[in-house]
């Protein structure tokens, strides 16, 4: 039991160090800008005194490491400043949108993970047969097509030709079941397709690696049936690598959400982030980027927990 706790604490420590490094990278990049953001905000007509005053107000006349510390502190205290584009507090803008993005990502995960595991296990247990080749071919096609084209094709089929679903996600406040499905069907389908492709491929690889181990050969010689071989012997040992594969693929989910929210006009955090890039609204951009990275690291950490807890060698 102690080893497990120690391992988990160690992983948590690594995640926190990574997050700190990520924040440094995000801060560094957003401060690389050669021009003067204050001058840009105020325009050419601003007098040097006004520029200087705003610089002081925004704390831009302090050295970079102090600004970094201040920024980090403001992130941790939950008040990452004011948006440059519309003078609203970043926290307010983000808290409006965050639940919607979490909802989209959550539904996608619930749909994609079980389906991907099923497809991956199916491909692995029939490896090198027609079933496997068929799945591999489809997966390769899906993975090679960018999300925005999958979304475009989905709109073309389901909205234009069949007329079943609207091409825009309204995300109403208290949706009926029908509205709910109409809102999420296309975005979730688009995201899931890419995710299932990535995940099932890695699940298959992890399981096949286990199938080549000596203990599986032993089980074959013992006369265990094929399904018992895959599900009882190989699968429990592959849970760790599969959990890792799932976490890695969820990084595609983070990227995919960006595209899908923009295409379907879904009012989530990713479309907010794309707007902040267009407006060069750095406080908002930094906050959004950190949210995405934190979300991803939490998912990876959860996968680590699964991998550690499922490892029979660590159980007493």
């Amino acid at each position, binding site marked *: 039991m102690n080893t497990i706790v120690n391992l988990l604490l160690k992983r948590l420590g690594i995640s926190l160090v990574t997050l700190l490094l990520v924040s440094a990278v995000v801060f560094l990049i957003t401060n690389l800008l050669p021009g003067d953001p204050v001058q840009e905000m105020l325009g050419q007509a601003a007098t040097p005194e006004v520029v200087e005053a705003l610089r002081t107000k925004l704390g831009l006349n302090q050295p970079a490491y102090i600004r970094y510390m201040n920024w980090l502190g403001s992130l941790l205290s939950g008040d990452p400043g004011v948006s440059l584009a519309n003078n609203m507090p970043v926290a307010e803008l983000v808290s409006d949108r965050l639940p919607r993005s979490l909802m989209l990502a959550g539904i996608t995960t619930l749909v994609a993970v079980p389906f991907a595991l099923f497809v991956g296990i199916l491909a692995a247990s029939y490896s090198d047969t027609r079933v496997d080749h068929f799945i591999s071919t489809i997966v*390769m096609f899906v993975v090679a097509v960018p999300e925005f084209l999958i979304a475009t094709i989905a709109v073309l089929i389901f909205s234009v030709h069949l007329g079943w679903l609207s091409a825009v996600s309204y995300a109403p406040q208290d949706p009926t079941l029908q509205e709910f499905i109409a809102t999420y069907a296309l975005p979730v389908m688009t995201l899931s397709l890419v995710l299932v492709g990535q995940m099932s491929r890695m699940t298959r690889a992890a399981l096949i690696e286990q199938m080549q181990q000596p203990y599986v050969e032993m089980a074959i010689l013992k006369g265990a049936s094929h399904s018992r071989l895959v599900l009882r012997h190989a699968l429990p040992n592959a849970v760790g690598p599969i959990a890792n594969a799932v976490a890695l693929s969820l990084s595609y989910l983070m990227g995919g959400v960006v595209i899908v929210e923009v295409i379907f006009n879904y009012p989530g955090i990713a479309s907010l982030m794309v707007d902040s890039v267009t407006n060069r609204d750095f406080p908002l951009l930094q906050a959004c*980027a950190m949210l995405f990275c934190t979300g991803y690291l939490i998912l990876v950490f959860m996968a680590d927990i699964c991998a550690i807890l499922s490892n029979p060698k660590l159980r007493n």
Partner: protein
Amino acid sequence: MKSLYRYLGITGLAGLALTLFWVLVSFVGPLIAPYSPGEIVNYDVFLPMSWEHLLGTDYLGRSVLSRVMDGARFTVGLAFAAALLASLLGTGLGLFSAVSGKALDESISRVMDALLSIPNKIFALVMIAALGSSIPILLLITAITYTPGVFRIARSLAVNINQMDYIQVARARGEGRIYLASVEVLPNMIHPMLTDFGLRFVYVVLLLSSLSFLGLGVQPPNADLGSLVRENMSGLWEGAPAIMAPAAAIISLTIGVNLFIDSLRSSR
């Protein structure tokens, strides 16, 4: 030809053909394109395919065929350069890290791991906000985005090779680190790194066209294949070739390269 077929298989050969086709288009496209990509050739927009305009016209009445040929030049050229830069940077850094002392190796790896934990698109978006999206900057941004991934593979390869007997022998012979890294380790990394380069190329095509689709990649008057899909979105309702053609171009390019790389890997 026969041995090539035996080596790659039918799918690999198809992939190679598609890849070569797009490389060819991006080189000679501007020379054989029927019109200049910016020229308005017809006052009717979103025209269907015809003998006069093979792939119809776009949302401003420009020749889609000419624009796709020009767009392929940007997509293929930029992705090739960025993937090459990422491979060179990542391999060099990975090799350097693997043969360096433990402390340096650890710290480089830690930073690269941190960079890897930033989702690609988010990383690219942050850099675009800070640096803009002119063509050279886009090249740099997509290259930097994929360098940590290359680094990870190159480093683990180099660490494995570094422990082999013949390296120990060379070390015992008194060879220096630079000699070991460049003459003994690097040549054995080249084949897997070439395969990795192919995959990176596909990733860069996907990232770059996604960025352009968001309007944050290649900026007008230039247009890559992703920008072409974006600007002709309003033609989707009529299924105009103006949007189908660039979409098909992206898909056939990425699938072609994927098929080719896949067959290379399975033939080893």
